[in-house]
């Protein structure tokens, strides 16, 4: 049975391995340049002691290729679902060859176990190789401006890709079993996988662990960006951007000790200097601007205003990766259980 399964996997496995090999060559040829740019920057900034604020030029080396690698990491698990998962049973059911396969001296339960085990293991090995290559290639970028913990980039690297691939595979098998048509099953797999990814990214991942809250003094962060126009009612206040490398910032806001958010109106009341600034025709001097700003921050701090950051620290990146891997792996197991149950119910 194992040899039969290997024989039937041959073509798909060869195509998959070919794609990985092409990717490996591209990554191996381009990584040295990224590493070199990053190393040069690290040496220069540690000499100048401004590593926290200086811009790492590594992100500008080949942003097109970086996007392409991200896309590959995004699409690869889907391809596993479409080409390894969906045809596994749908192909047999559609062409009628299940009547040949399941009447040899192998029970259909064992046939399914060997198929799922072997093709599933191939999917795991291939996606693990992909993770290893992509993470290695992206390491200089992660040291640069890129934030691997941001909701979108989180799913482009790390072990979670293995979870996506296993889930897409099981989803493809289950869709093929229920729908009995390869092409229909592929469409259902694509739709189901996207829905699951979007749902987990938006609603599950944010509540995996309660976020941390950090208060920062306004002297450090400023109060944000105020826009004032002479006509009344068109003021707006954007909270300050806080630099927290590789953390996932949910929200920043300027609040007082009772939790009320600073509004543009309150800001103008506390700091009338800004309102006057907007109305004067003569541009103020730099010294005058700095004085107004410092006065304002001091007054706001006195009124207990501070910047509140709600975030997941960068140290939680790998726990989050493993947790999401576990979620998708459990879902994949549940789908496999569904396939066993369905075959048992519909066939002998």
């Amino acid at each position, binding site marked *: *049975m194992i*040899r*039969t399964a290997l*024989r*039937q996997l041959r*073509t798909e496995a060869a195509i998959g391995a070919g794609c990985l090999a092409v990717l490996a060559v591209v990554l191996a040829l381009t990584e040295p340049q990224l590493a070199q740019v990053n190393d040069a920057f690290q040496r220069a900034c540690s000499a100048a002691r401004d590593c926290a604020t200086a811009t790492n030029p590594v992100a500008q080396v080949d942003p097109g290729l970086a996007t392409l690698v991200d896309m590959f990491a995004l699409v690869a698990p889907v391809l596993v679902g479409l080409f390894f998962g969906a045809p596994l049973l749908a192909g047999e059911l559609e*062409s*009628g*060859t*299940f*009547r*040949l*396969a*399941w*009447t*040899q*001296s*192998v*029970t*259909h339960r*064992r046939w399914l176990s060997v198929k799922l085990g072997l093709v599933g293991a191939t999917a795991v090995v291939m996606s693990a190789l992909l993770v290893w290559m992509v993470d290695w290639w992206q390491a200089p970028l992660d040291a640069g401006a890129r934030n691997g913990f941001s909701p979108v980039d989180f799913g482009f690297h790390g072990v979670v890709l293995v979870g996506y691939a296993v889930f897409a595979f099981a989803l493809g098998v289950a869709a093929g079993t229920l729908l009995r048509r390869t092409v229909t099953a592929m469409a259902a797999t694509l739709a189901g996988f996207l829905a699951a990814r979007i749902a987990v990214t938006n609603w599950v991942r944010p509540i995996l662990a309660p976020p941390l809250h950090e208060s920062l003094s306004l002297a450090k962060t400023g109060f944000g960006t105020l826009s004032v126009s002479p006509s009344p009612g068109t003021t707006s206040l954007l909270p300050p951007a806080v630099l927290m490398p590789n953390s996932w910032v949910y929200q920043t806001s300027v609040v007082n000790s009772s939790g009320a958010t600073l509004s543009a109106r309150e800001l103008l009341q506390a700091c009338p200097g800004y309102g006057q600034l907007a109305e004067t025709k003569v541009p103020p001097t730099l010294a005058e601007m700095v004085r107004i700003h410092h006065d304002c921050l001091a007054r706001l701090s006195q009124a207990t205003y501070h910047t509140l950051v709600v975030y997941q620290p960068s140290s939680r990146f790998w726990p989050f990766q493993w947790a999401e891997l576990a979620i998708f792996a459990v879902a994949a197991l549940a789908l496999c259980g569904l396939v066993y149950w369905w075959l048992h119910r519909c*066939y*002998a």
Partner: protein
Amino acid sequence: MTAALEATGLGKRYGRTWALSDCDLSIPTGKVVGLVGPNGAGKTTLLHLAVGLLRPTCGALMVLGGAPGSTPGQLARVGFVAQDTPTYVGMSVRDHLRFGAWMNPAWDGAAAEQRVARLGLDPRQRVGNLSGGQRAQLALTLAVAKRPELLVLDEPVANLDPLARREFLQGLMEVVAEDGASVILSSHLVADLERVCDYLVVLVGSRVQIAGEIDNLLSTHLRLTGPRHDRHAVPSGQSVVSESHTERQSTFIVRTSQPILDPKWSVEKIGLEDLVLAYMAHTPALGPRPRLELRQ
């Protein structure tokens, strides 16, 4: 001796329709059984139940004394050629023989290769390029090389031209002669079965109408022709299978164990085809045909 197939109260339902109901059968081993009935009568359902591709909704089914499809050992004892002889179109003939060898511990590789050579099949040829007859022969080879005790074939010749049909059935008979395996073969054409079978099961409307040895069936079914009568005029002790009437005369096909001596009837033996057609027209659930009686 265990029966090749023993069914009691066997039934299979898809949703709300019964594909097979109240099936009681006991087919001895060593027979070549023809399973005949119109399309949609439940032949495929019965055969899929027998090879373990389906589970019964109710009743019990034993094949060679075991539950169908339950264990690798049970699967190894039954060879199956499915309808339209499914094969993997992208694989070669040789790949299929390897598939058979890998999937069956009792595989007879030498016999399989010999058979393929005798059929003139090129082992390197992709199965997608074979003719229907060649594919059917390959499927039969796969089923036979398992060395099964029971060979089940679902409409194996339905899509073959007359020559391929004859060759296939000839090949099947050779196998039976060599191995002594029991065979269950379905068809909706009696002519296919007449040549090879010695046991007949007629399945109509999801029910078994009659089952038995063909010689026995032919000797117990007679055609009575006489002046126009309704079925009550038929001598007692006969059961009427079918009847037809014209203005002046009535024809009955009856099942009887006694000779018919009444001189008003002319009595004839009937052929297998007529016998099967009579049962296909016969619907015991509806009782005597009221339409004909009203006209009288």
